């Protein structure tokens, strides 16, 4: 495989691995814990590295994941004191751990093979250089294996505990009363988020992990009401964003990770505008349609009031609408056209006549 293909595959796998826990994070309104965890794990990564002196060691993964859980626990403890609100407790904990991490990196710049650029941007472009070999055979980039395994763990966890996750996410009180512990699920999910953040950290850096965890599930959330669909959609959107991000980076000659986050955001923007039922355009179209349909009903009522009376000749002329109902000409024309098209009104020498259907419409509107 060419390095370009490998980078794209890695980008897609990272994005999917992040999107999987992300779905549950946003459903549980804990999206900001991904922000806190992804910052705080830097502390664990640096400490782990200072101990084992090898960035590829699994010890680092474990140390970092433990820091993630530590962050969650500290935040929770701080909140429980009742002295600060929940978001303040998040905002107090992770900057400390992140700061210690950054200071350690800067201090040990000589012997840590990490720099602050790598922390923020990741090194996905260099990932194909670090290869995993086994019995003399080249098995592909090491980080692809790491992230791939983490992604599979996430997937297995979700498949195994789908019911529990669903229940604790949507109705924690019911889950507790049925004997599923929301707290166990909470910490399990937080551990997965931590491991995933560590795995993705190498590739895309600490802050952009948040984009990959939050943006694709948020986009999927606009498109569906079903949890299972949301999970698959998130993965699909994550892959599209990752690959598109890679090509944007090629085109701009800029950071791949940054472009992946940019594309993830762009896809959300697209969903926000164009989602079939919840998008802004769909909302605007629905409002316009409702407005017209309401106006058609008003028109049939107006006509039925004057039907067969002396003033029919005056009231039911089409140019009278502006005067009587206060509609401007283009809107009146549009309403009339809709009314004729739906068969509620007929035009007879410039005089509007109700059809049976129109009469029925007016009657039911009145009856309500």
């Amino acid at each position, binding site marked *: 495989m060419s390095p370009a293909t490998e980078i794209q595959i890695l980008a897609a796998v990272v994005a999917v691995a992040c999107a999987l826990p992300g779905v549950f994070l946003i459903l549980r309104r804990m999206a900001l814990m991904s922000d806190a965890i992804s910052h705080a794990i830097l502390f664990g990564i640096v400490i782990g590295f200072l101990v084992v002196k090898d960035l590829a060691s699994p010890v680092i993964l474990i140390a970092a994941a433990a820091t993630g859980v530590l962050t969650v626990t500290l935040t929770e403890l701080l909140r429980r004191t009742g002295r600060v609100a929940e978001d303040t407790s998040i905002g*107090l904990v992770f900057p400390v751990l992140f700061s210690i991490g950054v200071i350690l990196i800067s201090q040990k710049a000589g012997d840590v093979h990490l720099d602050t650029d790598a922390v923020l941007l990741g090194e996905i472009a260099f990932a194909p250089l670090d290869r995993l070999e086994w019995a003399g055979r080249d098995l592909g980039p090491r980080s692809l294996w790491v992230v791939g395994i983490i992604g599979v763990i996430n997937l297995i966890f979700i498949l195994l505990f789908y019911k529990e996750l669903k229940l604790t996410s949507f109705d924690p009180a019911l889950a507790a009363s049925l004997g599923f512990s929301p707290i166990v699920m909470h910490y399990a999910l937080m551990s997965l988020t931590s491991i995933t953040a560590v795995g993705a950290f190498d590739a895309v850096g600490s802050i952009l992990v948040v984009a990959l965890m939050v943006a694709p599930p*948020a986009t999927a959330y606009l498109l569906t009401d079903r949890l299972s669909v949301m999970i698959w959609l998130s993965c699909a959107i994550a892959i599209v964003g990752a690959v598109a991000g890679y090509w944007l980076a090629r085109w701009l000659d800029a950071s791949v990770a940054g*472009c992946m986050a940019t594309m993830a955001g762009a896809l959300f923007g697209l969903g926000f505008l164009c989602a079939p039922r919840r998008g802004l355009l769909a909302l605007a179209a629905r409002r316009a349609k409702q407005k017209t349909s309401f106006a058609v009903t008003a028109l049939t009522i107006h006509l039925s009031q004057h039907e067969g009376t002396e003033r029919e000749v005056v009231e039911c002329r089409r140019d009278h609408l502006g005067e009587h109902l206060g509609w401007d000409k283009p809107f009146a024309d549009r309403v009339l056209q809709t009314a004729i098209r739906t068969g509620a009104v007929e035009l007879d020498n410039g005089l509007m006549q109700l059809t049976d259907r129109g009469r029925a419409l007016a009657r039911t509107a009145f009856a309500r």
Partner: protein
Amino acid sequence: MDGEVFTRIFTDYTLRTVALGTAALGFVSGALGSFAVLRKQALLGDATSHAALPGIAVAFLLTGSKAPLVLVLGAALAGWLGTLAIMTIVGLSRVKYDTALGMILSVFFGVGLVLLTFIQRRPDATQAGLDTYLFGQAATLLDRDVKTIAGLGAIALLAMALLWKELKLLSFDPDFGATLGFPMRGLDIILTSLIVIAIVIGLQAVGVVLMSAMVVAPAAAARQWTDKLGIMVPLAGVFGALSGVTGAVISSSATRMPTGPVIVLCVSAVAVASLLLAPNRGLFPQWLRSRRQRHAVRKEAVLSDLRALEEQHAGEAPGHSAAVLRMMAPNPAGVSPRLQELSDRGWVAKTGSDEWTITEEGLRALEAQLGSGGDER
């Protein structure tokens, strides 16, 4: 740190500039951050500061200038747009606040990084210095930067002072404010804009990644010391200013010490100390208080147990073994120290090796404590 560094603030021109700049930005972000924390929008500052990054890059790309005012205006515009985007997403879709916040924060930051790497790879690489905006470098503060920080900060603080009553209302009871006819939405936008200013003036020294801590931590610390907004805001300002100066001085006098993280550690230390030690809300004073209370209750219980024994054994020789009292107490280990304290006061008297009796004085004290009708037996 040795004290010499701090005296150098008054003699070393560069250090004085740095100290002035960080003090000013710390004060402004601390003071305005109080409102963010009280309105439970502590993390909005995190989003705003990350979102400011593309603004800095675009301002540089468009003007080619690194003048502080230009970059700060770019940052403010982008930070403000990010905040607006969060409000729009939450208002017009079913995406929740935390999701919108996390997404805008990271996506804007991603766009900013793209622009930064894009600028770096341009042939006329005059960008050097833009990446100090990531983690902050107080040592790069020049005279003109400090003037920008102080000028914009003063404007923000002045606006806060002029709108004090309205902002107070907005923070504590916006519904009531609306019924009084105040334009709450407009005030919300004004306050958000003031917080955006407070954040962007700190970006050069503290960095976009950690500036949120300067909004949250001083305010969270000040909150522990007082229940009055009029005290909390200036106190948070002072905490912010002190941490800013301390952090900047430590960072400029050591090698390879990024300023932002050092300042954040200082301000977090203040927050932790306040959480633990503040007289009323602090955890340690509270623990002491509840311990004292527990002891008082137990002391009373021992005294009342002793009286009950005396009544049951009326006419016998006075004095009851502490072992019996221990059996009557919910916490046997606490009985002996309590008896000792009671005897120090003269409320009980020792009659044997470990036998005790209640004194007249003790009976009176018990009556007084339980109140006239408070005798439960």
